[in-house]
Each structure stands twice: as C-alpha cells, then as structure tokens.
C-alpha cells in the first residue's frame, strides 16, 4: 500500500471547519483550504444519499464577489468583454453559467453570474468562481474592468449547497419563497430570518439550492438544515462523483486555458447574440469552432469492465491510434460502475464509437457515450 501524508500547515478554514470535525469528517487539503473529503458514512453512501434525499455541502471556499456598476447595462457590458455568455439579457433574479476566457479563447475559469432579484440592487452582478482560481480571477477582472465598475470581493460571505430531490421540501420549511423558484433563478431573501441570496442551482445534476450568507451566520443555517431528517453533510469526494455522473466540468481537470468552451462541449452556454456579435476574448477562434466544429471535443466515456480509468488515461481509437486523454474518471455509485470524461478527436466523438483505454499498460474496451451519465433532475 502506498500512502501520502500531507501537512496541513497554513491551510485556510471555512466558517464551518469546527462543524465538519464535530461531524466526523476526514479533512484534506483542497485549493488552499482544509476541507471535508468525506464523513463517517463514506463517499458512496454520501453520493447515494444526495441522489435519494438531500446532501449539504460546504462550498464556502469558493470565491464570491459583487461586480457593481451604475446600472445593469453598464455592469453587463463590462463583464461581457471577458466572458462569452449573454449577461445583458439576464433578467432580474436569473443566473447563468459562463467562462472567463483568455485572448486565445482558452478557459481561465468557469463561474456563475447572477443578476439579483431586488430592484434596489440594479447594476450588481454576483459572481461565484472556483476556490483554486479566485485570486487569479479577481486580479484578472480588476485589471480589465473599466473605471466605472467596482469589483467587491465577498470574502466575508459563506456558501452552502443543498442538493437532492427533497431539497425543495427542506429549504421551503425555512424559506417559503424557495418552493416557487425555477432552475437557475435567484432571490434575495431570508432563511429563518437570516439575510441570504438563494439560487436554485448546483453541481450534482439534482434539484437543489445554493445559499450565500454572511460567514458569521452560516453555522446557524447549516445546523438548521442538518437538523432536518432528510439532510446529511456531504464531502468533496461525493461532490466529485456526483458532478462526474452529471457530466459537469471540474476546472483544472476537464477545462483549463488549453481548452475552449466549444471543445469542452459548453457551446450551449454561449447565447445567440454573443455568437453573432462576438466581442469576447478569443471570439475569432470560438466562432470558427462553432461554425466548423472543433478539432477535439469533450465526451463521456464508459469503460466496459469494472476497472476505473483515471485522469490522464490515454484514449486510443479501435485501430490503436492515440486520439485523446481522460480528464476525469472514477467510479460512479449511481451508475454502479466506472465512468469517465475526456477529449477525443472530433471524428471519434459520436456516441457509440468504440475506443480503447490504456490502464496500467493494458488495453480496456470502452465506448463514447452521451453526457450526462445520470439524467439531470433540475426543477424546470
């Protein structure tokens, strides 16, 4: 058995660190934070609980910020210079997924952008970015935003994800407004009297919510939620297996500066007006890829046997030619077998295409399959 012992020096803590320890979490370093990878029940039980009931995830390590301009159009136009999504067309109380792009159209990070529901907050956009990228992202934004825009980091805020088919019942008990929300909508509201922003979104493929509140109040919200019979705390291990089955990208693995949104099969997140007008970094390349098809594409890959194919696994065509690599791979508890995603040359990207995975020197049969592995169950 090989093992790695990791020092936990200088790791940051979220406001729920003590709660994780009290709940029996195994803590690991992640993006500079000490985070729960699993609790006593283990990753498979946590994964299955989230698909059957409700999982509570501490995602307070993620980067939150407010972009503030004179009005929505001012803030939206400034952000649109850096991302390919239609932000101008975002209605109050609506959220969109997009990517910060470099000049070549490579992905610097992926993020959620929310226009607050409250008219008093006109001109504000709420951003949630990846923990490992937040310092770079905020520096990137600060350096490129015009002088009439302010970027306010919200490091004093915490973030919870409440995910699973019973999330609507659970969250509505504390915030009745949550029941009527549609997928990718957001409200400025109260949870048991505590001020918060709630969006109906997540990273598991299940229905659910993300709750942003002041760090000083997050423990109260987390404990109320954990007091509900349907809710269990879920660690990063199950968060990863849930998002992989849902076909969702993990930054630094499935997407990075070497991949464009079109290659990453994220073209759905580039709305019509932006495709037509351009005006975002890398627009020439991205519009060309949209028109002609990218050279390679992110696809789902289903190994035929039981052996998981991990990140970095070489993908070969049936004739033995190397055609790409696995970018995320592991065991899918809901699928009850190995699942993977990776990039393959476009001519091999059609679902049903047989491919070969090279795992520990052995060739294993696999197939290109449509994503997600587990159907999304969002509240439409």
């Amino acid at each position, binding site marked *: *058995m*090989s*093992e790695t*012992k990791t020092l936990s020096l200088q790791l940051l803590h979220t406001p729920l660190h003590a709660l994780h320890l009290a709940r029996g979490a195994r803590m690991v370093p992640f993006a500079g934070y000490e985070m729960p*990878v*699993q609790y006593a029940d*283990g*990753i*498979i039980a946590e*994964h299955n609980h989230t698909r059957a009931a409700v999982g509570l995830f501490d995602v307070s390590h993620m980067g939150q910020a407010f972009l503030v301009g004179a009005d929505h159009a001012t803030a939206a136009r400034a952000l649109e210079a850096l991302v390919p999504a239609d932000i101008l067309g975002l209605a109050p109380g609506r959220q969109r997924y997009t990517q910060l792009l470099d000049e070549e159209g490579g992905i610097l990070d992926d993020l959620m952008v929310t226009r607050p529901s409250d008219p008093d907050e006109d001109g504000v956009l709420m951003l949630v970015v990846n923990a490992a990228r937040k310092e770079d992202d905020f520096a990137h934004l600060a350096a490129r935003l015009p002088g009439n825009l302010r970027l306010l980091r919200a490091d004093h805020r915490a973030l919870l994800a409440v995910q699973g088919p019973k999330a609507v019942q659970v969250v509505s008990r504390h915030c009745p407004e949550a029941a009527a929300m549609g997928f990718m909508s957001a409200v400025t509201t109260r949870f048991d009297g505590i001020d918060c922003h709630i969006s109906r979104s997540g990273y598991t493929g299940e229905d659910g919510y993300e709750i942003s509140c002041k760090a000083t109040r997050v423990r109260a919200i987390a404990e109320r939620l954990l007091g509900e019979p349907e809710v269990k705390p879920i660690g990063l*291990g199950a968060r*990863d*297996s849930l998002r992989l089955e849902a076909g969702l990208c993990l930054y630094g693995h499935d997407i990075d500066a070497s991949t464009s949104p079109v290659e990453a099969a994220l073209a759905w997140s580039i709305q019509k007006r932006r495709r037509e007008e351009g005006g975002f970094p890398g627009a020439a390349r991205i519009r060309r890829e949209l028109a002609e098809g990218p050279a390679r594409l992110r696809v789902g890959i289903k190994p035929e046997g*039981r*052996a*998981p194919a*991990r990140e970095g696994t070489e993908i070969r065509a049936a004739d033995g030619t190397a055609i790409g690599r696995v970018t995320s791979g*592991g*065991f899918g*508890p809901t699928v009850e077998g*190995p699942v993977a995603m990776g990039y393959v040359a476009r001519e091999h990207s059609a679902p049903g295409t047989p491919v070969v995975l090279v795992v*520990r020197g052995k060739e294993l049969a696999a197939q290109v399959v449509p994503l997600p592995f587990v159907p999304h169950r969002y509240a439409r």
Partner: protein
Amino acid sequence: MAKRYTKDHEWIEVDGDVAVVGISDYAQSQLGDVVYVELPEVGKTVSKGAEAAVVESVKAASEVYAPAGGEVVGVNEALGGAPATVNEDAEGKGWFLKLKLANAAELDDLMSPDQYKEFVASLA
C-alpha cells in the same frame, strides 16, 4: 502462524507452504469504499516489495506490494464481483492473493500484530 504486517499496510499469513496476502483493516478504513481490485495472474512470480495488485477506492488507485517473494498460486476471484468485501472483512474474506513463498526468511523483518497496532497508533 499469526499474521505479519508491512509498513505499507499489507498482511501475510503463512499456512503450510502457502501464504495468504491482503491489506490491513486500517488500510481499508483509510482508503474508503473499495470499488475495484486488480489481481495478478496465477503463475506470476513477484519479489518482496514489488507491486502485486492494485486496489481502487472511489478517489484513487493504490498499489499493493508483495510482503514476501514467491509465485502467485491463487487469487480471490470473489473480489471481482464484490470489491466491497475488502471494506467489510479486509483481514479475512477480503484477502487478495496466495503466494508460494520463495524464502520464508523474508517474513522475519515484518511486524507482529502488536507491533503493527503500535505502528498504526504512531501514524495518528
């Protein structure tokens, strides 16, 4: 003969001229849910400390090293369909492979159950 343990958390138990090899209960608890075990071919010869098998949890793959050298004379086929047996009974039904030992003296530097227990306590 009682089990002997390695610092890499394998166990080996000699029964006549054949030794049974697996991973310790502590190892399975650290790995978490085991989802796949790759076992060697029967007839393969392994030397002490060489990779003999691979155990995969949801998160990662880990090598299992041979506690002593010898010929693989049996593998636990039941793990193919039920890898979670390693979590349920790591030092019993969750065994990995059987070795015909090349040199029984290679077990001399391994830990006794009490020594291993102390070793694990020192890791906490």
